[in-house]
């Protein structure tokens, strides 16, 4: 038994404890990651539902109905249209 043995033993113990701690840390972080991923999935689902809702509200038939009934809008007659030709860029 040399003098260095207790020192090595101490280092070994420290390393072993370090390994245990880091493994524990890794697992905790992993569980957190899992939770966040689950949340991401939830948000994706919610995004899909919101998209669905948005497109239901924005259905053209609904927009048209509100425009013509509530806002009393209508398409102008062709007689009241003036077609403007764009000026050629050279001038």
């Amino acid at each position, binding site marked *: 038994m040399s003098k260095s043995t207790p020192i090595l033993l101490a280092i070994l113990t420290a390393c072993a404890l370090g390994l245990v701690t880091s493994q524990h840390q*890794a*697992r905790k972080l*992993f*569980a957190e990651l*899992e939770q966040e991923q689950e949340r991401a999935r939830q948000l994706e*689902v919610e995004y*899909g*539902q919101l*998209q*669905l809702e948005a*497109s*239901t509200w924005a*259905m*053209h*038939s609904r927009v*048209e109905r509100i425009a013509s009934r509530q806002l009393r809008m209508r*398409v102008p*007659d*062709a*007689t009241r*249209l003036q*077609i403007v030709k764009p000026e050629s860029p050279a001038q």
Partner: protein
Amino acid sequence: MKYATSPVLTLTLPVWRSRLLAFAFVSLFVVLIARAGYLQGMHNDFLQAKGESRYSRVIEITASRGRILDRNGEPLAITTPVKSIWAIPDEVKISRKQIARLAELLEMPAQEIDKRVTDTARDFVFIKRQVSPETADRVAELRIPGLFQNREYRRYYPGGEIMAHVLGFTGADDIGQEGIELAFQETLAGKPGSRRVIKDRLGQIVEDVQSIKAAQNGRDLVLALDTRMQNLAYSHLKSAVEKHRAKAGSIVVVDVSTGEVLALANAPAYNPNKRSRLSGAQFRNRAITDTFEPGSTLKPFTIALALQAGKVRPNTLIQIAPGGFGIGAATIRDTHAERTLTVAQVIQKSSNIGAARIALSLPAASMWEMFQHAGFGAAPNLSFPGEATGKLRPYRSWRPIEQATMAYGHGISVSLVQLARAYTMFAREGDMVPLSLLRVDAAPSAQRVIAPETARAVRAMLELAVHSGGTAPRAQIMGYRVAGKTGTAQKQENGAYSSSRYVSSFVGFAPASNPRLVIAVMIDEPSDGLYYGGTVAAPVFAQVMTGALRVLDVTPDGPMTPIELPSEGDEVKESI
């Protein structure tokens, strides 16, 4: 007294006894070591598996079904998770009050719930599937023992009945059953994956061991449809079908340059989000799967062929009257008073005798070839389920009367998409591109059918047909030049043509100077007394075309003057 030295107590044991004992203990140890060695070294696979099963789990990774989008990225079909509520009847403990509350939440009769949860002969019974997550949460709050929930998926269609026939729908297990959902099941469906993880005693995942199979989400599908045009097409078609008390109707809007189907609708439709109590007939996409005898809308093809072959020119005179045109035992009749018509007028006024005479001057083989090149008698290859090919008999079996009637669209059957596609021949410069239900990003290669000059000549004739003096003045649009052709065909009933049931159609395109859209409209059995294509189908064409050209911001190429319609008596009636 010392016991140790007492001779009475002196015990001498034979040496073999201690040896035997030592041997027994040593061999027991040897057995233990050997067993340990065997378990650790040789038999460890089994044990490791057993051990792993205590903490490692294979969990499934769900894959979502792809969305269906319109050409501008508007979602047309989206999958979202819902819940299914099921029960183990043996374990259910439920009070009358709870049943009533449950019935209220799930919108189903209380007796039905009662019947299901008391059916103890079964181990598993669904109470209701596809329940919204909010409702499912409220059901969970009731805390009824024996009632469970599972996650499943449901497809929603924000467009409702407007897109119903194109999109189709999926079944309870998110597998396509009709329409695009069925046709593109492979693309849309995701492939679920799985992975092995380590769970702690709380059931939390603490380590990812290995990914066995990565989950693959379904791909999004971008259709050629334009939501705005689809809405226009469906709403005008629907009101026309209702107004004329017709059995059904279909409409197709095709982009001339790319062959994309911008809108495709059928009426009556159904709501794909609530489709209980519906039969297969309502799910059929008539524009693609059903055929009809097109009638006069087929005349331009015969005329184009005659022009192409140099048999006639647009101003060649064709004799129409007096009387009918007899071929064998049959006589073809016309409703026009004129003695002679030019070839252009044959189209404009839709003369059957004119078309028949021109057809008989052509060889049957080339007429058949023309129809075939136009896409009749062959599936349009939209990869849509149940595409109709239509009926085009081989020319060798044609009798002269059949060749003559085929010139005006009898004895041949087509689907509405085939008809719309065929007209792109005139809208383009005599060539055709394949139709597509999916968005096309690069211009497809075109196949030439007739010469550009012929296409232009027919286009000019078709433009005459929508002016006063033609059969379809109601197809006119203010500000744009329109070209098109009406069709009014009697339906066959027990092998004979019916005199009360008609198919009214109109196919046309605009702006005539540089066509952008082809629209084909078909109204099946209008029953309010009107049945001419020019009065039933042409107005739908005009309404949809007006809106569609505005959506596309097409520069007007016609006069900005109000449309003049001929007075009641002066209208040109089509020959039927």
